[in-house]
């Protein structure tokens, strides 16, 4: 069981208020991703939940029990750190068994659990090695193994994939999602990478400057962003924003159109512009376009479209795919 409730959680370091007040409900078994630009307080929020930082005010409940003043060990949570934080002088086996040893679990049970975790994570043949002899991905697995043997109420991941190369990151992303499907334990995952957030989460919490901007499923955030910040943060490449005359035609201060929601034409359309760089990815082509009024736009075209630098192009947003925002950035 692992439902977590934050009530008006506030955190200040001296005079600097990092988290001005967060209310959040995390259901048992959910995969929740905290996402936001660096410095938005997402890691701090995770550390507050872990108990590695004290809250300035407010309360944290795990399974209905108030744990605001409980130490990290008492909360029954397990954490995977960005640097993995493996114990360098212990073998993989001892690393994984360490939390069990600290809990004074009988040796036989310890061994059973370590063997089980090693099997899930494909670590069988590395159990006697030291962390220094492992690759980045293997270290990551050991860190996860150390977390799962405790059978915690919830897993906390602090940017666990940021030290891995791109290919491995995709693999580990799938493995962690797979693990969540198997264990069905609550997971809280912090990342600045919106792709990780979109692909893994049941529920995304978008943070900016310590404030929760929006909470929802990935598709909810994609199709109904609450404000301009969320609209710009979710989706890759980022949403295009057009202000002024073009937006006024649609009765809004600003309109947002995602790169994939443009209709392109070489003859006529709502917004004329000039093609700058064309990034050919094979399956898609991303066109960097400068509108005649100077606004930079990114538009997605199909992969084999023959288009070149300096070509004249007309853009028309797809009907029903225009996001309207009022002057203060809220969705209208």
């Amino acid at each position: 069981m692992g439902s977590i409730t934050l009530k008006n959680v506030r955190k200040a370091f001296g005079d600097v208020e990092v988290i001005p007040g967060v209310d959040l409900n995390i259901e048992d078994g959910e995969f929740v991703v905290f996402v936001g630009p660096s410095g938005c307080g997402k890691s701090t929020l995770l550390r507050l939940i872990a108990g590695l930082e004290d809250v300035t005010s407010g309360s944290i409940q795990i399974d209905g029990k108030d744990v605001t003043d409980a130490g990290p060990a008492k909360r029954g949570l397990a954490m995977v750190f960005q640097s993995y934080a493996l114990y360098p002088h212990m073998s993989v086996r001892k690393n994984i068994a360490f939390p069990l040893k600290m809990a004074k679990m009988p040796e036989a049970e310890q061994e059973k659990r370590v063997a089980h975790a090693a099997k899930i994570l494909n670590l069988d043949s590395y159990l006697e090695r030291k962390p220094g002899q492992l690759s980045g991905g293997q270290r990551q697995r050991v860190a996860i193994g150390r977390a799962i043997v405790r059978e915690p109420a919830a897993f906390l991941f602090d940017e666990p994939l940021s030290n891995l190369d791109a290919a491995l990151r995709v693999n580990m992303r799938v493995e962690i999602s797979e693990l969540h499907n198997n264990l069905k334990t609550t997971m809280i995952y912090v990342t600045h990478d919106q792709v990780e957030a979109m692909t893994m989460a049941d529920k995304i919490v978008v943070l900016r400057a310590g404030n929760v901007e929006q909470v929802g499923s990935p598709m909810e955030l994609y199709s109904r962003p609450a404000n301009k910040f969320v609209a710009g943060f979710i989706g890759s490449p980022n949403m295009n924003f057009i202000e002024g005359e073009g937006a006024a035609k649609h009765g809004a201060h600003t309109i947002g159109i995602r790169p994939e929601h443009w209709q392109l034409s070489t003859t006529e359309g709502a917004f004329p512009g000039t093609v700058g760089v064309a990034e050919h990815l094979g399956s898609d082509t991303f066109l960097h376009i400068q509108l005649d009024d100077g606004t930079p736009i990114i538009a997605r075209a199909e992969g084999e479209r023959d288009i070149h630098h300096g070509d004249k192009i007309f853009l028309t947003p797809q009907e029903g795919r225009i996001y309207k925002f009022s002057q203060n950035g809220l969705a209208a």
Partner: protein
Amino acid sequence: MATRQTQSLARLMRAPAIILLLIWMIVPLGMTLYYSFLNYNLLNPASTSWAGFFNYKYFYTDPAFWESIWNTLVLVLGVLLITVIGGILIAMLIDKPIFGQGIVRILVISPFFVMPPVAALIWKNMIMHPSYGVFADIAKFFGMSPVDWFAQYPLFSIIVIVAWQWLPFATLILLTSLQSLDGEQMEAAEMDGAPALSRFFYLTLPHMSRAITVVILIQTIFLLGVYAEILVTTNGGPGNASTNLTYLIYRAARLNFDIGGAAAGGIIAVVLANIVAIFLMRAVGKNLD
């Protein structure tokens, strides 16, 4: 430096330094070895003669010899014990962010800058002196009779003085090691439910093992040769109670003017130091790969 030319060039360039160091070592060692086989007394320096192994036998059968070996061991081990354990504790204390941290650290390190005879004299006359030392004042304040440290506990007093001098060195090395300990590891251990004492024994201590090895090796080299502190405080006494091997050699050479006997003692000391070094490298050297 991979090619053959650069290798031989490098060899050529470092040869002068190595040759100089070799001469620096081999000449005194050779002379000591030579003197140790001579009857050579400064009271009658004109008549020297070949002595064979007599000097060695003389030095070795001296009843003070075994006592001095024992004292040397007690001194080295006692100081190591105090400095390593004390160094770890102080290092952990001053690793924490406190007000005036810079000044506190400089204060902790400052005994290292005091020359050994000066330090020993300060301890002798201002701290341990039975009539005007600080310890005597404290004892009198509590209504006890003051302890005459150098008469009653001579070796222990010297251990305290030498430990006071070496504690900063141990603290400094151990502090740098402590500062390189990864904070996330500590947090991970905290989440894993390890209490403070377990975190110390399972994480901090293994992390510091290399630094502790360095402290033990370097200090042992210097502690085998402790001499000035004994000279200015107890003069090796009462009896031979605070005479270590170095001081015994000094006594043979400078008080008995027996150059041959002192040289033989020196060679014995060299052999013993090497035996200690071999054991040390076996025991703790594996931490330094």
